[in-house]
């Protein structure tokens, strides 16, 4: 019980920091600005514009929220070490596991807040343009994005324990940016590859999380052609995401557990 209380208290500090530093608002403003610029290029008929808006918005918003989560996660522990704020915290009867889990929960809360703001803009924009929202697919999209953010947050913590802050953020961003490219490349090259290359591709497919699996944005935009995912598929994707999150988080914890501070 006290572990959960500690977790919530630590998470609250992350959330307060994210909100008071106003970075999230800046990210949301930049994202909205980008979308506005794209919308100003009005060369589609109304239906085309609506879909174009939705597609661009969801892509920009996914990027904005994913980078927010990744950067927030990667800098939590290095900042605590650098600014020495970790000492009075860990001087309390707080386990390092609860501390790390609290940090993760805080990052996820801040990420959800950021993503929520972006989604509010998205929903408002869609309705303002007279478009319809496919609520089933849209909510599934939001949910799976949150699962992907969890993977990225855990990865951010792990990288920050292995590398310097700058390197951790760079590697994390590169990983996120190339995730879909790698997946597409593997599925494109696999049929033509020899046995050795196929083994490498299979290993990569198993070892790296397939982040594209969590992206339903195209389906949410072209909802007339897609129906919502079944509960079974959603559960499998959730389990898949949780598995990678748990692996990364456990790695981060093992490194943090015995780290002298």
């Amino acid at each position, binding site marked *: 019980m006290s572990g959960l209380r500690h977790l919530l*208290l630590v998470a609250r*500090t992350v959330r307060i920091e994210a909100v008071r530093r106003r970075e999230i608002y800046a990210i949301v403003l930049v994202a909205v600005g980008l979308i506005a610029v794209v919308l100003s290029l009005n060369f589609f008929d109304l239906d085309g514009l609506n879909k174009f808006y939705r597609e661009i918005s969801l892509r920009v918003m996914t990027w904005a929220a994913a980078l927010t989560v990744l950067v927030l996660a990667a800098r939590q522990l290095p900042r605590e070490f650098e600014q*020495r704020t970790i000492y*009075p*915290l860990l*001087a309390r*009867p*707080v386990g390092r596991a609860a501390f790390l889990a609290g940090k993760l929960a805080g990052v996820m809360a801040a990420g959800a807040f950021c993503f929520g703001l972006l989604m509010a803009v998205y929903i408002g924009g869609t309705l303002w343009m007279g478009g319809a929202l496919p609520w089933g697919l849209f909510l599934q999209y939001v949910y799976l994005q949150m699962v992907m953010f969890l993977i990225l947050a855990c990865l951010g913590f792990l990288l920050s324990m292995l590398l310097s802050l700058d390197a951790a953020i760079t590697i994390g961003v590169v990983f996120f940016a190339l995730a879909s490219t790698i997946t597409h490349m593997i599925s494109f090259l696999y049929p033509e590859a020899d046995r050795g290359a196929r083994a490498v591709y299979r290993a990569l497919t198993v070892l790296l999380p397939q982040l594209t699996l969590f992206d339903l944005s195209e389906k949410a935009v072209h909802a007339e052609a897609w129906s919502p995912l079944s509960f079974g598929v959603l559960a499998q994707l959730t389990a898949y995401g949780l598995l990678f999150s748990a692996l990364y988080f456990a790695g981060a914890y093992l490194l943090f557990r015995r780290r002298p*501070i």
Partner: protein
Amino acid sequence: MAPSPIDVSDLVVSYGRGAKRTAAVRGVSFRVDEGECVGFIGANGAGKSTTIKALMGFVFPESGSVKVYGRTPGDAESRRRIGYLPEVALYYPFMKARELLELYGGLSGMGAAEVRAKAPALLEQVGLAGCGERLLRTFSKGMQQRLGIAQALLADPDLLILDELSSGLDPLGRAGLRTVLQAARKAGKTIFFSSHELTEVEALCDRVVMIHQGRIVRDAPVSDLIRPLNRYEVTFAGLAGEPAGWPDPVRTRDPRRDGADQWTLETDSIEAYTEVLEAIRSADGEVRRAVSKSISLEDDFIRLVQGGTEAAAG
């Protein structure tokens, strides 16, 4: 018998890996008993903060043992009884003082209402009355240190471990801090602190543990350290002839010339000092200055550290 608040035995802590591995603490042993106030002093890099970090479970012993109330450092039960002030206290700049105390209080197992009720008086006690709603990024270094002391006292701990106690505090702040610690002592708290302000250590502590180059070089009551080091200095003039012909109590104490007709000598006991004064007067000399020179803890520390360094260099 209840275990001691602090029991350190043959503690060795090293940093780095492979060829770059360096021992910061080399076989340190000491104990702090219930209700004691112990000063932990040493030069920069002597191993004070590393030892304190080992007590807090922030660094891990290579060998030896550290027990806090009979438990390993980092154990939740032992931490519940500790109030800790870190060496360089920095606190979340985006939080308010009250919020920070609520966070730390909550982590120590206090209820939010309990912290809210206690915080104003605590902030007033450390000289931060009315600052509860200020963001910490607006706090000066001294104010951060005061807040650090407040957070250490917050959960009414049995043991206070304070690293570089008066760092960043002005004389007024130090005086206030002394009052706070004296009150804590009266309340039966055990206090273990490191400080570079040796006059403060002298004034507050029952006992001093000195560390130098990772080893304990003194562990004694403050009174024991100061008493045998008393010196008496006499400056005089007007004795006829050369020192070889002066009365025994003066001649045998190797007076040194420090002016045309002025000499100074030192004695190490009150009896010898009185004897010298009488001998000068009875030989029609003039005592120009007679001081009871009590050597401070600081003098002792400097002598010990310099001696140790020279011995190591030699």
